[in-house]
């Protein structure tokens, strides 16, 4: 593997994000160990995707720090973070529909390429060399690896949902990732596609050694492949630890299934009514 990058350590410290008066994330801290798979889970609206958007630079959190190997990146623009090795996929696929699979993947390398405008217009010397080198590397390390050889020249719009998700992973891998952010990598997939994707994610961890942080609702997959699980609810961390520990945590069970105690529920409702 030629483009293996040193995996990064990610620390989120005391992060808070609010939209107007609505607190999406309040004082969240957790760490992602280098080379591990960490899953961020929680019910709908818990703030998982907001968290991802803070880490990749869409949102500017009001408080707290996001550290990559100890260096605070929370003030950097998204392209700068991309160059540092932050790569992500999106919950609702964000491929560029006007391009082929190959061009989508190549686009991922943008921040690491050097061709300037003049070289691009003439396609002379360095520009051609860089393109061909990238092509060879993408073919060898990514297209073969993710088994998408047969679709490389197809427009992405013509692909099935599962394959589009895989192309998105390919594009993220082309970004020379040191930390890979996967937003619901298997959402909407059937069992077979889910198993394929889980295998690819494990392979990325094993062969590329990349640090992986993922948001996922498929609990079976989360428990199977993650090394560490962080549970968010209403913008706060309610539990974190090894998969089987988190599974047993009463707060997590309550967050997912609701409290089993009717008396407690009545009390909470009464309290809320009193507040209003």
């Amino acid at each position, binding site marked *: 593997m030629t483009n293996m990058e040193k995996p990064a350590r990610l620390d989120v410290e005391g992060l808070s994000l609010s939209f107007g008066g609505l607190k999406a994330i309040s004082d969240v801290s957790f760490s992602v160990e280098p080379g591990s798979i960490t899953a961020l889970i929680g019910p709908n609206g818990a703030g998982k995707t907001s968290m991802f958007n803070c880490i*990749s*630079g*869409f949102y500017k959190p009001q408080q707290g720090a996001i550290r990559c190997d100890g260096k605070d990146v929370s003030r950097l*623009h*998204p*392209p700068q973070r*991309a*160059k540092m090795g932050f790569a*992500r996929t*999106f919950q609702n696929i*964000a491929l*560029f*529909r*006007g*391009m082929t699979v190959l*061009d989508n993947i*190549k*686009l*991922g*390398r*943008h*921040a*690491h*390429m050097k*061709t300037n*405008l003049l*070289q*691009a*217009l*003439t*396609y002379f010397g360095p*520009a*051609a060399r*860089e*393109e*061909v080198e990238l*092509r*060879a590397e993408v*073919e060898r390390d990514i297209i073969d690896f993710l088994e998408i050889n047969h679709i490389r020249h197809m427009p992405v719009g013509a692909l099935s949902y599962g394959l589009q998700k895989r192309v998105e992973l390919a*594009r993220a891998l082309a*970004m020379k990732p040191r930390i890979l952010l996967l937003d619901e990598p298997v959402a909407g997939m059937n069992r077979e596609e889910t198993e394929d994707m889980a295998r690819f994610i494990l392979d990325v961890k094993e062969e590329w050694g990349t640090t992986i942080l993922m948001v996922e609702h498929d609990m079976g997959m989360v428990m199977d492949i993650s090394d560490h699980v962080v549970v968010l609810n209403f913008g706060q961390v309610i539990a974190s630890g090894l998969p089987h520990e988190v599974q047993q945590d009463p707060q997590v069970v309550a967050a997912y299934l609701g409290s089993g105690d009717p008396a407690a529920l009545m009390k909470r409702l009464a309290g809320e009514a009193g507040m209003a």
Partner: protein
Amino acid sequence: MRIATANETYRADEALLQTNVQWAWIGVLVVAMVAAPFMLNNYWLYLACLVAINVASATGLNILTGYTGLVSLGQGAFMAVGAYTVAWLETHIGTPFILNLVAAGGTAALVGILVGLPSLRVKGLYLAIATIGASIILQFIFLNWDGVTGGSRGMNVAPASIFGVQLTTYFQLYWVLTPIAALMVLGAANLFRTRVGRAFIAIRDRDISAEVLGIPLLRYKLLSFAISSFYAGIAGGLWAYFFRSVGPESFTIGESIFYLAAVIVGGMGSILGAIIGATFMTLVPEVLRFGVEAISPYVDNAGTLLSPVRTVVFGALIILFLVFEPQGLAEIVQRIRRFFHLWPFRN
């Protein structure tokens, strides 16, 4: 029937032209273009030169509107900047032809960057209106900056001279305009084989995720404006050498609409599209004029009666294209290609 292209190296697979058939077509085109000036009369040579200028400008606008998704109605104004730059340099400095053209492109690019500044905030129709606003301001400057632009009188342009030869006839101009236009088209085609072109397409398709993938939006949007208006500036400079005078009436908002229509009719986001679109838009009114002349013996006052009809037919053709072929003329060419690839089988 063609099964596939068997390339042995990635370099060959990344080439602009993949098959021998494509090379053959380019060969036919080059031969036709070299032979054309010896076959055509002066009027058709005039049209051929005009097509070359329009192809250059439409290719530039295609980079901005077709590939980067930023709708601009300022292409005419950018061309005017180039044309005035050439006129001023010829009149006051007398610098060489090629240098003047590069200066025309450079000046237009600077103006383009300035006009492009709102593009980070506004898109689509709003950006189109902003570029119209910029065109109106530029028009005002051309009309009132008497010392530089000659005000409402405009400026005369000395004939271009290259290696001591003055280019005064359409025959001479053809040999300069066509290669320059061809080089500009080749540059645009190359652009979209590299990271710069991919970044433009990414911005068009999904600008927000493009940013997360490492593309600084403002820089690339302004770069697209700069390249597009550089093309417009050179096209405008060629225009000035071609018509030998520039005035505030030379480039109206109508010109900008003409180029936008050419890109849409030809096919947005396709190199071939801009070429076919600009050629089509330039030549169809002339072809229709021949139609009118052909029926004039049979219809009384055909000339006065039918020349407005010609304009209407031209407009209707554009509408029909938008409705029935929204991908443009380039898509028709692709369909014909596919047909012959699959022949004798039907898809």
